[in-house]
């Protein structure tokens, strides 16, 4: 049994679907999260390494402030790996230098006025749990404040999106509130 951000993830569940326990994480987002931390599709929660669990927890606690993903090189067909005598730390140092050089290039381009196209990371704007609930509450409050139809419907506990009210509308009557969540 693993606890991540207060949520219990059962051991025998697939990690990819256990992550959907979080409010705001569905199957697609969970798949992207697993790819981010190199968790394969059939990995069970009990098979996650401690490093993967801590990385997941630290990412989910604040997705917006997560460090950017390094762009690791991939071997072309005729690639020959360096001799085992070359220590890994040396290779990592070389990689870091190449990344810093890339950052400088991007900064130089931005100064010129032709900024390089950045990859729009969908997980950067991920909101889960309390942040997401706050956002929804704020949206409803904003609609009410500007006096819109949507705001009035929330206040009257009625359907917002043009559904029938002569029959049905049970869910809206139960859940639509100004102080939803």
């Amino acid at each position: 049994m693993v606890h991540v951000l207060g949520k219990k993830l059962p051991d025998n569940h697939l990690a990819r679907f256990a992550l959907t326990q979080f409010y705001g994480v569905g199957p697609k987002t969970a798949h992207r999260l697993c790819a981010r931390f190199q968790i394969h599709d059939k990995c069970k929660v009990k098979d996650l390494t401690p490093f993967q669990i801590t990385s997941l927890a630290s990412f989910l606690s604040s997705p917006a402030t997560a460090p950017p993903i390094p762009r690791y090189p991939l071997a072309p067909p005729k690639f020959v790996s360096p001799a085992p005598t070359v220590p890994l730390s040396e290779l990592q140092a070389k990689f870091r230098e190449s990344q810093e050089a890339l950052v400088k290039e991007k900064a130089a381009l931005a100064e010129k006025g032709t900024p390089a196209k950045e990859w729009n990371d969908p997980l950067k704007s991920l909101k889960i749990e309390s942040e997401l609930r706050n956002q929804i509450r704020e949206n409803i409050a904003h609609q009410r404040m500007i006096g819109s139809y949507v705001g009035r419907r929330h206040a009257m506990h009625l359907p917002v999106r043009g559904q029938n009210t002569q029959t049905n509308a049970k869910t809206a009557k139960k859940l639509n509130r100004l102080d939803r969540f």
Partner: protein
Amino acid sequence: MSEDKLKLPKTDKSPAVLPEQFEPMSTSLNLPLFEPKAITRKNVGTAAGFDLTPTNPAKVFGLPKKMFLEFRILSTPCSVIRDVTVETKHKLEKAKDSSSKDSRIVLTGRAGCGKSFLLHQAVQYAKSEGWIVLYIPRAKTLINSTTTYTYDLRTQTYLQPQASYRIVEKLLTVNSDALSTLTLSAPFTVGADQDKSKVQVFKEGTKLSEVAQACVKDKSFQSACGTLEVLMRELEGQTKFPVLMAIDDFQSLFHDTAYRDPFFRPIKSHHLSLPRLILEYASGKRNFAKGAFLSALTASDTQYTIPLELQDTLELGNRHPVSPYVQRSETLLQYASGLDANAGGLQNLKVPEKFSVEEAQALFEVWKDDLALTNSRHDESFMAKYVESDGNPRDFVWKGVLASYAPS
């Protein structure tokens, strides 16, 4: 017929009872053993059974799914010796003393024509002849995101520790005798990249079986990738035993894998360690000093179809017209047609689409002796099923013999 003796249930006190011969393990097919000396032109059209020792490659490496289902029903796993079996045997005999660069063969043919069975027969033949055998019956398990993967900066590929561990374990189990006579030609350090405190050094001259056993004992799979790499390098260099690398589902290695990188892009198969290893031997970039690379395509898999690059290089022909403007991947074309200009491309060995009448007869008798038929008009049903299935081996068994119910 035996069904006459089946008592229909009348009351709870006298339930239906199967006759003795239908009890499990009551029948056994008395077939000759599938051994090298049995594979001759004279024996084409006879069925031969596989031995059931614990180190048999089928038991250890496993089987393709459809073959496994068939052997599960049969009393004894067996197959028919065909013309193409004898041809493959001759090719392997020639390959025994030459580099695998000259013997990179792909078995092709229609769905159900017997490619996987032929590959399996080749594996059994090679094992009996004392080859070192590495058999991967379902290559798509390497790319369907079912085992761990981790990026490695040294090789600039994604390593597969769990899958590598399984292969080292199976390689050791099947070839333990051969591996205990081979030794390391250079010292080998395990775990230098991971944890410097747990580094293990194997001196030059250590038996390969010891190296493999040390890897199998380490249940964290950390040393598996390095150990597999060093084992393959040693097997490449040695000339004591010819090495057979047999891959089924070969076409799946030419697709994008189900693994995703941190940017959520599908990882290419040649960027995963195990598919890359197989593709390197297939393309001639790496070769065994003595041995062969034998692979079979799976024509009936709709998820991993035979890609255009393989269709072009093996000249398989296209069912549907293909535009010359459809993009072929340069990298995959390189792997299919040989990375080295001198290596040449993969050789296409076409498996005949139909059983000959003698071969079909032998298989029909196997199923008849195993009590699979429901009527006693054997000659008529044989000819009917042979014609209905157009001689296609899989259809003859599954849609012919096993799927028909014709009471006498």
